[in-house]
């Protein structure tokens, strides 16, 4: 429960921090922290335009996409507190429920019969497929390391001891940040601020969404960021008292948001053709983590 509340709170200002970082990096003052949320509220109040090609799929897709994100958040624990849903192997559920949301956002885009949105859908499907193994091998390594298979148990029994394990924590954080960037279609895989449809991934998929639906999808992105941030924070909260944990949680989230901002300010988007290779490289980093775990357990020597 507590993780849900914290993630919802974070989602309110996360994008604000990212945008603020980007504006400061480019020498501007930038909007207030809550400006993205205000934009969302404005969207939620608006009417919408639907394409005459679309069917009911287009109507239900954003809601299911949003529901899948909420469902995934329910699985995430906070320190010693379980998520609302917690069972052995819940990270499989987490990944698959997100995949369901992705499935719907893809068919929602295809429903418009647009010459552009199919392109984004195609890329999204491919990239998320390529990013999935990295997540599973990462979680598999930690399952192997701790001997547990649920988020809550993995995080509570994760003890950092040797130098290698700190290294593993850092690598895992890197992988999760990168997965979050891919899942949310941000730099370096996709540039949300690009103005050319041919080079977009996620943005081009939602060209036809408007009003409430668009608001849901955009808020979904905020939530997804906060969700991955919470996952990363869980690596560090450990067994501290609750207040300190909450502080660490927000600290990690803000650092994460600033990292996203910095990454987006100082890196260029990859060529589309090179994205698959880059994403697949994440899997090899996960495998590195896996071998690190084997090393800690003394399987190599």
């Amino acid at each position, binding site marked *: 429960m507590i993780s849900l509340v914290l993630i919802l709170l974070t989602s309110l200002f996360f994008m604000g921090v990212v945008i603020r970082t980007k504006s400061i990096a480019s020498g501007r003052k930038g909007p207030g922290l809550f400006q993205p949320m205000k934009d969302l509220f404005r969207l939620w109040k608006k009417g919408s335009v639907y394409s005459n090609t679309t069917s009911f799929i287009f109507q239900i897709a954003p809601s299911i996409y949003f*529901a899948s994100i909420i469902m995934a958040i329910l699985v995430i624990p906070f320190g010693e507190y379980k998520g609302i849903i917690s069972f052995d192997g819940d990270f499989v559920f987490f990944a698959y429920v997100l995949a369901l949301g992705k499935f719907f956002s893809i068919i929602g885009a295809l429903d418009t019969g647009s010459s552009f949105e199919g392109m984004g859908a195609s890329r999204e499907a491919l990239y998320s497929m390529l990013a999935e193994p990295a997540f599973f091998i990462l979680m598999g390594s930690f399952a*192997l390391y701790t001997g547990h298979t649920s988020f809550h148990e993995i995080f509570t029994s994760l003890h950092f001891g040797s130098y290698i394990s700190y290294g593993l924590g850092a690598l895992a954080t890197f992988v999760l940040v990168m997965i979050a960037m891919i899942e949310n279609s941000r730099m370096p895989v996709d540039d949300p601020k690009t103005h050319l449809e041919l080079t977009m991934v996620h943005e081009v998929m939602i060209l036809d969404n408007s009003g409430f639906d668009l608001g849901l999808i955009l808020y979904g992105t905020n939530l997804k960021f906060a969700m991955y941030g919470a996952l990363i924070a869980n690596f560090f909260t450990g067994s501290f008292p609750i207040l300190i944990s909450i502080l660490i949680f927000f600290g990690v989230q803000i650092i994460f948001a600033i990292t996203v901002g910095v990454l987006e300010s100082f890196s260029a988007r990859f060529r589309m053709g090179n994205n698959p290779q880059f994403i697949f490289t994440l899997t090899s980093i996960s495998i590195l983590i896996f071998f690190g775990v084997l090393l800690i357990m003394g399987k190599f020597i």
Partner: protein
Amino acid sequence: MAYIQTYIAILIISLLVIPFLKVKWKGISTLSLVIFNAILSGYHAFPALLGEKLEFIFPGSIVTGAVPIRIDALSAWFILLINFTLITGALYGLHYMKTYRKQTANISLHCLAYLLIQSSLIAICVIQNSLVFLFAWEIMTLSSFVLIIFEYYKQDTLKAGINFLIQSHAGVLFLTLGFIWVYYRTGSYDFDAISQFSSSFPPIVSLGLFFSFFIGFAIKAGFVPFHTWLPYAHPASPSHISGIMSGVIIKIGIFGILRMLQLIQTDYILLGYIILVFSVISGVYGVMLAILQHNLKKLLAYHSIENIGIIGIGIGLGTLGIGQQNITLILLGFGGALLHVLNHSLFKSLLFYAAGNVYQATHTMNIEHLGGLVKRMPQSAILFLIAALAICGLPPFNGFVSEFLIYSGLFDGMENKAMLNIVVLLFSVFGMVLIGGLAILCFTKAFGSIFLGNPRHHFQETPIESSTGKLLPMYMISAFILAIGLFPKFFFSLLTEPLKLYSDKMNFTGNFAQSVQISGTMQAIGFSAAGFIVLGLLIFIIRKAVTAQKPKLISATWGCGYTGETKKMQYTASSFIRSYRKLAEPVLSVRKKKIEIDGIFPVSGWHETHPYDKIEKWFIDLPWRRLKFFFGKFRFLQNGNVQFYVLYGTIFITLILIFPVLYEAFKKIIYFLNQI
């Protein structure tokens, strides 16, 4: 005993009567007989599933020896799922076949073959005498051949059918070899002799025996590289036959493998690794090829190979569990595999029936020609979508439950920290994840290009929704799919008895604490699935409430500034998977032909891709060509002159007659030499 005789008597009488009925009654009587048979066999199978093992022994003949009929929990599970899919298949087929009403004789044959396939499938599940088993197996193969070539007047169909027939018989050859081996050593056709055989020989010999059976059954099940008949046979047959073939007929191969695993004692750890690697390759290869297909039914056929791979991963995991004396692995591995057998039979048959609806509405299976059907056939579209989500293993549907069990098994199996074990399991996790991701790519492509967007082709007749008769069995299946997704605990508890067959193998004496824990997890999944549905509905209702008062405009799809006709510019199935194809091209073989558009006034351009199976090229086509070349050398023998043929006959007879004489002479010479 009397019960089985009655069963056979009814079958024979109905086979004799059906050809003389009117066309309308042929279908109806077949359907009612299928249901009747299902009730009859289900009546005995259900108690067996709950643990009441049944055994009849027929005296048999001199040739076969006693014929034991044993219904244990494993056969019961398969009998029940076979019956369900065959009933839905008959229901669907009854309406699907209306188009072919004029081909009376053909339909009679079809009905007979349908009844025979049901009886032979059930017979295969219960008969435990090798000879009679092979007999039933042969009836099954022949009747599925007849079912496949319903449209025998089409060349492709006949070709696919003969391909199926030949490859199936290659499978029969391996089975026969295995059974003869056992008979030669033990002198008994009873299946119990197989476990006798394997316990009296070193594990490596029984591994050989297992592989003889495994190859035989794998050809039926469609494991790579024995899968090549599958993608031809499925598109060729009528849709309800594709549905039952993919749903249950190929599963009988899985049944065979499971039965042999139960009987044969061998080095389970090694066997587990081998099955795992085989299955991961099958799964990934199947789905990799599925994505490239343009023919919807062929695409679904490749997905069957993928799902056989997933089932195989479960079986391999369970086998590993027996070897490592790990009860959790047995429960999760075999449990996942058995549940996935049921799940796959449900969503795959649903997909094929939906494909059948599309086919009868549009008369094409080419994905590139379809589009926008959701507006014409909303019910078929929703049913297809449900099945597509289920086959991708997404919650809240049934595919997720079985894939989850297998995933849990793979992660739990890592507790055994032997290096090889961990690496193989990690490889399998990697395979499972790739399969999942690729399946999503494949089904977004299929659903998106068939049902969504604008039509890509102008049909003479506007496609219309199928009749209620065809939709009814599909709704039945989708209700079942959702039920498994929402109440996985119940369905897992049904598997308790079949799983005991395997946990007994490791002399497990402790309590089933793990089983309790797993069913706890299953319950949590059920709740989460239900919660997800509620949440989705809630958000949708909120959306409805908020947007009810807001203005809604209907307009054209945003063309990024271009306002003209964009229908021809929408993304096609091929363009949707283009980036994937580029990535996968080195592994797969795709023939491409294209004419680029260039010049100041471009005229026309086109682009064709023909995906082909690399394994088929190397494993079937190449040896085939070599064989043809070799036998071609003897072509001169077949020269068309009757005189020559008479001569061959004479030479043959002479040789036969001379042979004993020569043999005697040879013996004498040897004797003579020995004397010296």
